[in-house]
């Protein structure tokens, strides 16, 4: 079982960078009275903010009547949901069986070295978040990583780093 912790400093964080909750109105309107709406609402919220802001939970609860404890229960259960802000590019390195056999750990290590962050962390410039995932479904191209909607296959440590550097150059222009 994975354990996700809710950061205590959360309120502080969001005070500094306030979250525009009105962006959720449309989403909440759409799902308000549907049964089984909890997961789609959280997914929609994450699509808007990139993560699930602390204040968004309260607003969802207010509008839909869903209980906070149920929402946190679901948000901490599924790997998809993030409780912390993420970088602009989410680098998902596959650690599925096929990629593991083809030495996926070398890819993660090379990226960790280059970006100076560990699995689950975000670079200080907010450009990259590193995540390891299980199987992206391109196993025959193992080892594989995914950045945004783009999948890269047959990687080596250095080719993975090269892809990151190219993104960095693009972003700084």
């Amino acid at each position, binding site marked *: *079982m994975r354990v996700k912790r809710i950061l205590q400093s959360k309120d502080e964080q969001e005070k500094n960078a306030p979250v525009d909750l009105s962006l959720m109105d449309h989403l909440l309107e759409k799902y308000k009275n549907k049964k089984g709406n909890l997961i789609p609402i959280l997914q929609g919220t994450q699509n808007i903010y990139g993560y699930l802001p602390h204040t968004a939970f309260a607003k969802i609860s207010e509008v839909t009547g869903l209980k906070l404890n149920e929402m946190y229960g679901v948000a901490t259960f599924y790997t998809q949901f993030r409780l912390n802000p993420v970088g602009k590019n989410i680098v998902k390195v596959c650690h599925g*069986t096929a990629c593991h056999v*083809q030495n996926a750990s070398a890819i993660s290590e090379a990226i960790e070295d280059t970006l100076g962050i560990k699995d689950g962390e975000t670079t200080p410039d907010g450009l990259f978040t590193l995540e390891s995932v299980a199987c992206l*479904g391109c*196993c025959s191209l193992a080892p594989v990583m995914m950045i945004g909607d783009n999948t890269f296959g*047959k990687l080596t440590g250095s080719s993975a780093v090269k892809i990151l550097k190219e993104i960095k150059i693009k972003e700084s222009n």
Partner: protein
Amino acid sequence: MKKTKVLIGLASCGIAAGAMKVYDKLKALQDAEKLDIVLKRTGCIGMCFREPLVEVIDDSGSYLYGDVNEEKAVEIFDKHLKQNEPVKDYIVKCDLFKTKDDIFWDGQIKIALRNCGVIDPENIDEYEEMGGYQAIKKILGEKISSEEVIQTVLDSGIRGRGGGGFPTGLKWRFAHNNKADTKYIICNADEGDPGAFMDRSLLEGDPHAVIEGLIIGAYAIGAKEGVIYCRAEYPLAIKRLNIALDQARKKGYLGKNILGAKDFNFDLYVKEGAGAFVCGEETALMASIEGERGMPRKRPPFPAESGLWAKPTNINNVETFANIPYIITNGAASYSKHGTEKSKGTKVFALTGKISHGGLVEVPMGISIRDIIFKLGGGIIGGKKFKAVQLGGPSGGCIPEYLADTIVDYDSVTATGAIMGSGGMVVMDETTCMVDMARFFLDFTCKESCGKCTFCRVGTKRMLEILTRITKGEGKEGDIQKLEELAYQIKETSLCGLGQTAPNPVLTTIKYFRHEYEAHIIDKKCPAKSCKQLLTYSVDPEKCTGCTVCAKNCPSNAIDGERKKVHFIRQDACIKCGACFTKCKFDAIIVS
């Protein structure tokens, strides 16, 4: 003369290999030269090891080009498409002559994958041209009763392709016989087994086949509403499913009074998963659709009695549904003629790992594992020695080389201690450490355990700790017995398939590779030279040129030596990171 057709394999794997660039290049060339050809996308052709793939079909036949990049695309365009001279060097399959890759296709029978890599998955007309939606038209047109449909499915002998292998016809009959005002039908597209991509390829390559299978299932059991539960990691599959659903609705295959039938109403929607392996388990999946934590519950009651929203529900796997239209159109015998006595038909496998021809194959049940790996799969990469194959992912087990003549059918595979599973086949060679493999799977199941059953939650963690210790060279005598003890306890006391099968990778590796465990624990050696902590690095004095690269890159300053003189690694300071080994240009670092 028919227009020349050019098909480009644009499934996720093709796109990852660069097929989109090839497509764009060919499109630009076609536009620039105003060449009168049909350029279109298709799904996974199966030959993932030759991706990107481009197929040219002209009057003389079909030519499949492999490993295409932008330059090769230009050449194919100039020579083949403009001057009608196929570029033989790049062809990996052709009707007119043999190629060295033909071995990949010999022995394959495509039923579930019948349209994958043939049609444009985003175009319903192409599916219809290939005989699509004929099965549901036949049922409604000839007024075939739901009992008869179920009997046909039963006669075909098809068993669930999601791993359990339960006869599909029987499952449908249970759901049919339970009377209720509302019933549901669900397609399980959660495909959580890491190392498997059959369902993704099907959804991306032929979504209508799965949808038609669901419509037939709904008719058979009397469901009005259906759900396709697809994992969020498959964005392209979700996109293509939604396109297909819209098209099917417009053509009257979904919605009210389907194809004019008075009392047949059925509609479907796609539900995105949120990343939890356990949600592949049917009761957890339903809890997830209901918006809760995906935790399995006790069965009985089975879903056929009380499933989604406590209504009778039928759930099947993607591949199971994809076979159904074929069975209805061509009759039960056309399917049951393939396979063995108790496992009928064909099965799709995803070949991955240390195999030369990684890709997607569909073979009749009864073929031996050896034939799949060494004939279709082309053997092991780099001619290394084949060690074992993992079937059934984290719930399955490793089958060693000496049992490779085992045939693929549910009972034979189960007899080895592995399971047939959903079709992932991960091939391992002599450089794969079996203890590390077991550790890898336990790490996976430990993280994915939902936490409901104590032994599954805590027991897998204890097993993982022991395995991690062993791979670090800190194994103790009695560890193997302790692992076995825990394994049986977890199997006995877990509610769902996750816990009941989680110890399988450990048990099968202990059964077949006990000596590797012992080498780790007693001799502190990793025979596959894969567990870093158990390796010793030393310098080969013959090969060392004294270039100092290793010493500069050593993070713990464990390497001494002067420029142009043989270097030396101090074992007490070495942290076994392997940096010297990867950096040395002269192969002078010996690993033992």
